[in-house]
């Protein structure tokens, strides 16, 4: 059962990820991205990472994608196809580099790759892995956890600084808007 489910989720993930890149309409791309996130959450569930799977859906498919869609609609991207020689040249270079990357990736993957000695600790089936994550987060990973909180605070302050309206300082006529 699990291999079939995995193949299903993995196939869906690859297909939707391709659609994100290939579709011309940005809103449709964003919606495919939601589907990709959900498929990834499915794979997490198969790996017994229930907490990660739920967070993936709540945070990525929920909160972040709403922001994405908001911004895309706000920018109102009308012209879907760009034309001109410069664009064609750039697109050509992009295809060439992409092909090169694919070739390099294929060569590398065919050389046989090995995972390091990762030993994921098995979570206590009664507590589920949310409890285990919480305990690790507040003991072993306490320092990164605290830095992350400062990081988020700085991001918030930064966003406010960038976004807040003109304060007491009168706009200077010499400098363009």
């Amino acid at each position, binding site marked *: 059962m699990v291999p079939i489910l995995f193949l299903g989720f993995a196939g869906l993930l690859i297909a939707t990820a391709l659609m994100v890149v290939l579709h011309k309409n940005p809103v449709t791309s964003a919606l495919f991205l939601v589907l990709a996130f959900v498929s990834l959450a499915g794979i997490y569930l198969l790996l017994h990472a229930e907490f990660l799977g739920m967070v993936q859906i709540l945070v990525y498919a929920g909160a972040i994608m709403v922001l994405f869609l908001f911004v895309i609609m706000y920018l109102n991207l009308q012209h879907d196809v760009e034309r001109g020689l410069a664009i064609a040249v750039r697109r050509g270079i992009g295809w060439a580099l992409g092909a090169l990357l694919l070739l390099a990736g294929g060569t590398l993957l065919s050389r046989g790759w090995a995972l*390091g000695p990762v030993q994921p600790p098995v979570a206590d089936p009664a507590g589920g892995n949310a409890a285990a994550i919480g305990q690790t987060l507040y003991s072993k990973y306490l320092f990164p956890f605290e*830095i992350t909180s400062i990081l988020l605070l*700085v991001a918030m302050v930064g966003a406010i600084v960038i976004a807040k309206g003109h304060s007491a300082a009168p706009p200077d006529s*010499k*400098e*363009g808007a």
Partner: protein
Amino acid sequence: MNVVPQPSFLMVDWWALGAVIALTVGCLALLVLEFLPAGERSSRGGVISLLTLGVSAYAVLRVAQDRRSLFDGMFVHDGMTVFFTVLFCAIGILSVLMSWDYVKRTRINQAEYYALLLSSVLGMVIMAASNDLITIFLGLELMSLSLYVMVGFRRTRLESNEAALKYFLLGAFASGFLLYGIALLYGATGTTDLGRMGAFLADSPVLSNPLLLVGGLLVLAGFAFKVAAVPFHMWTPDAYEGAPTSVTGFMSAGAKAAGFAALLRFGLKAMGPLEDQWAPLLSVIAALTMTVGNVTALLQQNLKRMLAYSSIAHAGYILVAIVAGGTTGAGAAVFYLAVYSFMNLGAFAILTMMGQGRDERVLVSDLHGLGFRRPLLGVAMTVFMISLGGIPPTAGFMGKIQVFGAAIEAGLIPLVIIGVLNSVISVFYYLRVTVAMYMREPEGEPTAISQGLPALLCVVITLVLTVWLGIQAQPLWVEAQRSVLSLL
């Protein structure tokens, strides 16, 4: 229910963490104090920042001789941490001094400006003190996020907006590369701890493992972006030009030193066993970085752009020292970073004084006649320029001696030849600034100078350091060599 182990700290650990704690408290205090509005000319932000940075440096210096490893080895307190924390605090103090009047005359919001400056220094300290890829990444993001906002601080200026956006987008990509690389390295070695990663690789050098190869290259690309090495340097001139001048000075010294501190730790501690593999790659990057930086700098009329390309070139010299490796090489890189920070901050401190009100005058032609009108600034600028060019008897010369000496010792003769040729090229554009100051007459009105006491103090301090380290380099050189001992 199992018991969560609580980390327990000794007194010495609290002092070792002192810089991190002080910087956090200072940053929060500045934000909270905004509830009590201060006047536009108030110096509250600057004073608090200076105090915070002073306390941070004191806390770390107090336990400078101790060696501690905290939080399961994620935060280490060793010679390197002490050296770089003090260097970052010095960079912070000099930046606060040069911003003092600049932020007032350009009407930048002071509280947020200084709070972000402190959080950026905090990110740098964490980067230098981290022994784990997770915390290195978090420190780097903390530093970068603060810098993105600081670059875009002058929201009424189009160039500032453009610079911030470019820096942010490219920086986000670079962070993505770095994070992906870290994930792959974790997959290949089973740990994010630098020491354990090095031990694993020493036992079984599995270079043929694509996970390790791709992961290492991605991490290298992420760091190369932060230190502005070719071919990841494209953002540098635009970001440096558009940012407020004081921010350009701060990021050119601080972000570069922090990037190299993390790269040194990662390269020598985690990837040390594979040095023979990455050294050739890094030497190519070093040669390209020196050459592209110096040759492009020749064409610049804008001093901030010129110094941006010059900072790319200096990253190349430091990479040469890292390729040379060993105590001498790594020590030379650390020494050069300190020297470069001081002379570069001095040059930028003079640039912050150019112009009046919200004006910014940073073209080479704006310097015409400055040498005779303001003798002190003229002499100081000349010293900084010949130091950046690497002419004795300045600190820049001693830095180049150490770097190229280490490279010769390691048998990297081609790199040394390229480096010396580049130094010769660089003298041309550095001296052009001096020529502009002393041998050209201003056309029309000469550039107004907004001379404030703190910025002048910053110039004097950096001037003294630049000359003194050119004559008495030994103490700093010994400290630099001692600081890298824990990596090898």
